[in-house]
C-alpha cells in the first residue's frame, strides 16, 4: 500500500520543507542583525507591491520556468541535468547569432528564429553529455558540471575574441537590431491604455514559458515519448524489456532538457539585454534545480516554484537596495530550499509516513 495519502506527498511535504527553509533563513537574517519580518515586508512590497515589482518578478519567473522545466524533464528519465547553466549560456550564443547575423523583418519572425537558435544551441550542449552517458556510461552529473565550465570558457572566448565590436572594451556582443526587440508586457498593456510595469523587463517570453509548461505536461503524461521517458526513468531493465531504447531515450530527453534550458535565452538575452553579455545566465540554470525539486518535477509545481523564486530574486534585489542585507541572502534561501526539498526530503517524509501509517492502522483496528 502507499504509505501516505497523495495530497501529503504532493502538497504537505514540500510545504513543510519550504517552511523549514524559511525558518532557517529567518534565523540567518536574525544572525546578521536584521529583522526577518521587516525583510519579508520589504521583499513583498518590492516584488509584489507594484506593477513595477511584478514586471521584474515575472521576468525572473520566466527564466526559472525554462530552467526548472529543463531539470524536471530530465529527472523523469532519472537523469540529473545539472548543466542548465551552460546550456542556457549556449542558448544565449544561439540567440545572439540569430539576431545579429540574420536580418529579420519583424520581431515575431525573429522570435521564432531565435527560439530555434536558442533551443538548438542548448540542446547541442546537452547532446555530448547525453551521448557519453548513453553510450559510454559516463556519469551525466559530472559531465554536465564539466560542460558548464567549458561553456563559460567558450562564451568568454566568443565575447572577447569574436563577437565584441571593434573598439569596445566591454566583453559583450553588439546590440541587436531593433527589428528583433521583443514587446515588453508593459507595451502590450499600453496598447490598451493601461499603465502597467513601465520600464520592466517582463516580455512576451513569459507567455511562451507558460506554453512550455503546458507542452511539457502533455509530453510527460500524454505522449508515447513521455510514457517511454517515465518508464525508462523508473527502471532501465524494464524499459529494455519493453523495447524502449535507453540510448534513444537518454539522448532525446537530454536534447529536450537542453533545449528548454537554452530557450531561456530568448528572455534574458533577446527580451531584456538585447545583446549577449558575459555571464548572462546569472545562476538561473542552478536555480532550475531548486525550482524542479520544489515543484516535484510537475509543470504546475515548476510554475509555482518559479514564481516563488522570481519573487525571491526581485525581493532580494530590493533588500539589497533598501536594507543592509546583501543580495546573497537569496542564494542562501535557494540553498536551503534545495537542501530541504531535495537532500533532506526524508527528514520531513519519514515522520509523516510514520504518522499516516499509524493512523491508518488505528482506523483499521
Amino acid at each position, binding site marked *: 500500500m502507499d504509505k501516505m495519502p497523495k495530497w501529503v506527498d504532493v502538497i504537505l511535504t514540500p510545504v513543510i520543507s519550504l517552511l523549514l527553509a524559511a525558518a532557517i533563513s529567518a534565523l540567518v537574517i536574525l544572525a546578521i542583525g536584521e529583522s526577518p519580518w521587516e525583510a519579508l515586508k520589504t521583499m513583498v512590497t518590492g516584488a509584489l507591491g507594484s506593477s513595477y515589482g511584478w514586471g521584474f518578478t515575472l521576468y525572473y519567473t520566466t527564466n526559472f520556468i525554462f530552467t526548472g522545466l529543463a531539470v524536471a524533464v530530465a529527472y523523469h528519465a532519472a537523469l540529473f541535468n545539472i548543466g542548465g547553466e551552460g546550456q542556457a549560456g549556449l542558448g544565449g550564443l544561439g540567440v545572439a547569432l540569430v539576431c545579429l547575423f540574420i536580418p529579420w523583418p519583424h520581431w515575431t519572425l525573429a522570435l521564432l528564429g531565435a527560439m530555434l537558435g536558442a533551443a538548438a544551441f542548448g540542446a547541442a550542449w546537452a547532446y555530448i553529455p547525453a551521448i557519453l552517458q548513453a553510450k559510454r556510461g*559516463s556519469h551525466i552529473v*559530472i559531465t554536465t558540471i*564539466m560542460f558548464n565550465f567549458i561553456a563559460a570558457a567558450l562564451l568568454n572566448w566568443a565575447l572577447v575574441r569574436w563577437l565584441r565590436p571593434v573598439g569596445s572594451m566591454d566583453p559583450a556582443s553588439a546590440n541587436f537590431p531593433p527589428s528583433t526587440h521583443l514587446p515588453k508586457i508593459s507595451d502590450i498593456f499600453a496598447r490598451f491604455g493601461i499603465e502597467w510595469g513601465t520600464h520592466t523587463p517582463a516580455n512576451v517570453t513569459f507567455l511562451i514559458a507558460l506554453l512550455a509548461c503546458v507542452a511539457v505536461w502533455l509530453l510527460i503524461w500524454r505522449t508515447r515519448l513521455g510514457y517511454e521517458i517515465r518508464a525508462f526513468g523508473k527502471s532501465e531493465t524494464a524499459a529494455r524489456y519493453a523495447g524502449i531504447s535507453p540510448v534513444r531515450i537518454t539522448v532525446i530527453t537530454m536534447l529536450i532538457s537542453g533545449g528548454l534550458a537554452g530557450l531561456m535565452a530568448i528572455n534574458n538575452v533577446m527580451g531584456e539585454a538585447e545583446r549577449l553579455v558575459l555571464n548572462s545566465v546569472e545562476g538561473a540554470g542552478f536555480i532550475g534545480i531548486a525550482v524542479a525539486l520544489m515543484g516535484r518535477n510537475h509543470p504546475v509545481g515548476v510554475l509555482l516554484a518559479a514564481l516563488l523564486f522570481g519573487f525571491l530574486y526581485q525581493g532580494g534585489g530590493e533588500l539589497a537596495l533598501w536594507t543592509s542585507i546583501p543580495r546573497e541572502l537569496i542564494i542562501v534561501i535557494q540553498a536551503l530550499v534545495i537542501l530541504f526539498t531535495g*537532500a533532506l526530503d526524508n527528514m520531513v517524509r519519514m515522520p509523516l509516513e510514520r504518522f499516516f501509517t499509524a493512523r491508518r492502522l488505528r482506523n483499521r483496528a
Partner: protein
Amino acid sequence: MDFNTILQILDSAVRLMTPLLLACLAGLYSERAGVFDIGLEGKMLMAAFTSATVAALTGNVWLGLCAGIIGSLMLSLVHGLASITFRGNQLISGVAINFLAAGLTVLLGQKIFGLGGRTPTLNPGAELEALTTPFRDWLSGIVGPDLAVTLTTMPRFTEIRLPFADALRDVPVIGPIYAELISDHSILVYVAFLCVPATWWLLNRTRFGLRLRAVGENPAAVDTAGVSVTRLRYAAVGICGVLCGLAGAYLATGLSAGFVKDMTAGRGFIALAALIFAKWRPWGALGATFLFGLLEAIANRYPNLELGPITIPSMFMNALPYILTVIILAGFVGRAIPPRAGGEPYVKER
C-alpha cells in the same frame, strides 16, 4: 623557455596544485566510502572564509586554520545528515552545500567586516591592527603582552625556508630546484604532499582503510560483519571536511592574503575532476592535481600561448582540465570505474 622560467612555472604549479590536492584527497576519502561529494567547492569556500575571518580578528593564522576546519566540518555534517542519516540524494545535497557556502560567506562577511563580502587583507597593518586589538588585549591578560603580540601578528602562513636552501642555491641544477621549487612554501604545501603517502598507507595498510574501502564497495558486507556503516561513512565525510578545511585555509591564508567572494572559482570542481582522473587513488591524485596545477600556471603566465602558427587562448587552457576529464570519463583513455556503492544511500535489506 629557459631553465629559470621552467622552474618558476613549476614552482607556481606546486602552489596552485596544493588546494586542488587537498580537496582531491578530501573527495577521495568521501567517495571511497561511497558518499559522492560535489560539495567540495562549497566546503573549501566556507573554510577559506572562516579561516580568513578568524585570522583577521585574532591575527593568528593557526586559529584561522582551526576555524577553517570547523567551518568546513559544519558543512560536512550537513552532507552527512542528508546523505547518510536521511538517505537523501548525495548530489543534490552537494549542490545545496555549494550554494549555502556561496551565500553565507558573503552574508556573514558583509555583516562582520562590511567590505562587500571580502575580509581585510591579511597583511600586518593599520586595518588589521584595529581588528585584532580586542583579542590581543584579552590574550595578553593570559600569556603576557610580549607573547600576545607575537601570537597576534601572524595573520597568514609564511613561506618556510628549508635547511641549506641558501647554501645549496648555487649548486648547478639541483641547487635551484631545491631552493626555488622544493623550499620556500607554506607549511600547508608540505602537509598536502605528505597527505598523499599517508592516505595511501591509511587506505591499504590499516583496519580503518580496509573498512572504508569496503563500505564504498559493498556496505552490506561491512554491516553484516558487525561494523557500523553509518559511523564509517561519517568518519570519511569528517576527514573530507578536515582536508577541505586545509584546502580552503591555504587558499585564503597561504596562497592569497584574505578572502574574497567566490574565491574558490571552481577549484572544488577541478579537484573533483582530478579525482576521476586519478581513478580514486592517492598517488593518482598527486599526478592529476599536478597536471591541472601546471595547466593553471601556464595559463597564468601565458594568456596567449603561442605554439608556432597556432595561438592558444587562455580560456582554452582554463577549460582544459574539464575537457580532459570529459575525455577520461568517456573512457577513451583508460576507463575510470568509481567505487561500486558510490552515490547510493545504504538501506538494510534481507
